[in-house]
């Protein structure tokens, strides 16, 4: 039996929308009783349209947002019982936009060193070596150590973000649209890198995306979200072949094929 890395049961998140000073507040349920589980080494993709609660769910799993209901367990331990530093060692994010995920005032070196510094790592003399090893791991040349984010390309920035996420060797990585801000040619490089790293470091991924081609390439299992609810969950192959929920069907139909005429004939 594979052990569960992420286990979310009935997670709820509400946003209160103020409608004016003397009017009541409307409640928007961004995440509605979502239950998920991810086993070790698996890549679970969460797909759905913009505003369906994918990112909110990711932030809850990262401990950046407090859920209004339900429990999230990481490695069998409830989130609110894990300390800030312990949590940081367990789960790390990779964000969508590498242009806003790196502090423009810091050098690449200090951005990647930060997790070591924060953890109060005992041997500062090894930091530089470990930073260089990690940079090498994600394919960044060591001369970028002293450069600033605005001197790097989008793909290189995303590699920096990956290096920062991986330097403390987390067990779970939550990728929130890791490639949607990148050029197509760079996208595949980053996706292949993520796949290789998963094997090499035995990572568990939660991949949030609305790009179904990315999902098909990366995921072992797919959860489909629609208006805050999880409407379907299945193995990737099964989902793409035999979608059950209407929304999933629409979603799959929206994939553009190179030759629509022949695709129609096949159906």
């Amino acid at each position: 039996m594979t052990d569960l890395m992420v286990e979310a049961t009935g997670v709820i998140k509400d946003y209160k929308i103020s409608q004016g000073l003397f009017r009541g507040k409307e409640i928007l349920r961004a995440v509605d009783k979502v239950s998920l589980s991810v086993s070790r080494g698996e890549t679970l993709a969460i797909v759905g349209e913009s505003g369906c609660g994918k990112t909110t769910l990711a932030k809850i799993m990262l401990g950046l947002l407090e859920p209004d209901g339900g429990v999230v367990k990481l490695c069998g331990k409830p989130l609110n019982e894990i300390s800030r530093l312990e949590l940081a060692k367990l789960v790390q994010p990779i964000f969508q936009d590498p242009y806003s995920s790196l502090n423009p005032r810091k050098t690449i070196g200090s951005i990647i060193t930060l997790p070591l510094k924060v953890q109060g790592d005992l041997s500062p003399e090894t930091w530089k070596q470990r930073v260089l090893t990690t940079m090498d791991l994600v394919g960044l040349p060591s001369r970028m150590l002293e450069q600033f984010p605005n001197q790097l390309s989008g793909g290189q920035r995303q590699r920096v973000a990956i290096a920062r996420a991986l330097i403390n060797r987390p067990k779970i990585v939550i990728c929130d649209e890791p490639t949607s801000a990148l050029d197509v040619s760079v996208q595949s490089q980053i996706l292949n890198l993520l796949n290789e790293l998963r094997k090499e470091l035995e990572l568990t991924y939660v991949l949030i995306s609305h790009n179904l081609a990315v999902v098909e390439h990366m995921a072992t299992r797919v959860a489909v979200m629609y208006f805050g609810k999880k409407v379907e969950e299945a193995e990737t192959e099964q989902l793409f072949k035999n979608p059950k929920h209407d929304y999933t069907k629409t979603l799959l139909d929206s994939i553009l094929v190179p030759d629509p005429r022949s695709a129609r004939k096949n159906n």
Partner: protein
Amino acid sequence: MTIEPSSTTPKSSSVYTRFVGHQGVMVGAFIVLSIFVLALFAPILAPHDPYNQDLLARLIPPVWDSRGSWEHIFGTDHLGRDYLSRLIYGARISLLIGFGAAIISGLIGTIMGVMAGYFGGRVDMVVTFLITVRLSMPVVLVALAVVAIVGGSLQVVVMVLGLLLWDRFAVVMRTSTLQIRSMDYVAASQAVGCSTPRILMTEIMPNVVNNLIVIATLEMAHAIILEAALSFLGLGVQPPLPSWGLMVSEGKDMMLFEPWLITIPGVALFLLVLAINLMGDGVRDITAPENRN
């Protein structure tokens, strides 16, 4: 992997070269530095004692006037005090008030604004309310009232201006913190396990500090002008201290026939305020990360 040619030749021009290359900041810094040196070495540089009255040598015009002499380059005032010496000593007061008020109000405004922007919710409500309250009070009127009650002195003027001019700091710091707070690198540093003070100091502050510098220069200039106004109204720095505003005020009765009495300190004020503003603009240009290349 492929490496873009641009990144192989990092043109990391240092802050120094960018500073030297920026005309506005060079002019501004030169003027401010000159006035600063004048203020610092006033006892050595001033040709006469600024308090020494000579009633026989009253209202001598400056040297470019046909009646002027090199003895008193900028002439003398209505009590026969050397105008150049008073101007040099006055620079001390203007700079002291400018820096003092900007530091006090900057501290108050930055703390309030950053807290409001970062924490949001109730904290933001309270700070926004305080800003609104402060904005609804006319600065000059309140300053006048306070100075009239407490009594005018250099310290009181610095304190009053410092406690009144934090509004723009708070407003600007709040909005720029709000903007930075929504950036992914703040979320990333939270996920990495940074404590809130650490995030404020290493992620938020470095990215809002250029706005802070710009506002600080604006408010410094504002405070210097307000001090001049207060002194002009007789409630700022008290005579015989030589403040530039006070010099304008004392000269206003003789404005028609001895116009240099107000033009000279007026031009000095104008130059100092202009130079500070030039410097602020330049510092913003230089420190912006977009311009690093």
